[in-house]
């Protein structure tokens, strides 16, 4: 037991990076201390997704979480927030779901301007590198997502959070 603990030191918190890779693309990267099949599982089972998608500090919570993580399957996330009566809805379709490797989904709640999100899970030893790539239909669509979220500051009210999440469209 002790030997095992030595070979697996308490991991330092991994860094999350975000980069506007081009006029139409936004890329988020993060490494997780676990195999790809486990990290993938946490992205593909609604009961697990629910546990991490709405961080406590953001004061949002799931009203419902449906995710049929199969190629062609649909998802619909509905969030509530203490200061708003209107729930927030995000929905779309999984264009691709390759177990332990790749998820691609559409973000349809915003209409035409929605991004297509591709998440890849790349196992590296005991870790998994997750790369989340949002491809917007045009430079204007990404600019608009950014502009709507930045004009009023971030995280101060529900409306602002709404914008952040709409832009974030995971």
């Amino acid at each position, binding site marked *: 037991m002790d030997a095992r603990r030595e070979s697996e030191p308490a991991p330092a918190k991994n860094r999350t990076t*975000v980069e506007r*890779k081009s006029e139409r693309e936004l890329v988020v990267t993060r490494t997780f*201390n*676990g195999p790809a099949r486990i990290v993938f599982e946490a992205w593909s089972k609604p009961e697990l997704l629910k546990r991490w998608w709405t*961080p406590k500090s953001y004061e949002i919570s799931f009203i419902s979480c449906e995710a049929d993580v199969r190629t062609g399957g649909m998802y619909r996330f509905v969030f509530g927030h203490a200061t708003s009566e209107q729930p927030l809805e995000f929905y779309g379709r999984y264009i691709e779901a390759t177990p332990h490797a790749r998820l691609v989904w559409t973000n349809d709640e915003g209409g035409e301007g929605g991004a297509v999100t591709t998440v890849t899970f790349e196992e590296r030893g005991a870790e998994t590198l997750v790369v989340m790539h949002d491809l917007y239909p045009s430079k204007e669509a990404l600019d608009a997502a950014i502009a709507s979220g*930045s004009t009023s*500051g*971030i995280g101060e009210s529900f409306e602002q959070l709404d914008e952040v999440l709409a832009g974030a469209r995971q």
Partner: protein
Amino acid sequence: MVQFSQLRFDTSFAALSDATRRGVLEQLGHEDASITDLAQKFHMTLTGMKKHVGVLEQVGLVTTEKVGRVRTCRLGLRRLEEEAAWIEGYRQLWDARFSELDKVVEELKRKEKVDGRKKRE
């Protein structure tokens, strides 16, 4: 991933490498100005000033707006700052999510270990 921001960084530097363009930025820091105002101020032709403003505009340091026959120039820095702020806000959201996801991953790993042990027994 690095390339795009690096490229932008480099062109911003190139835009700032010229004394006139730095002067234009300083001037616009005080007040908005038309191309004509700026050309006079820096003793340049209209065409020459248009070129300088064009370079600054391309990298987002200046924005221009044409009203009637007058093109007004103003500092474009705000846009860059807003984009940087939005990206940082977006990063914080995902960072918060991923901290929670770390916990789920740890739990699943523990569970897998226990289940594996049970299977072997």
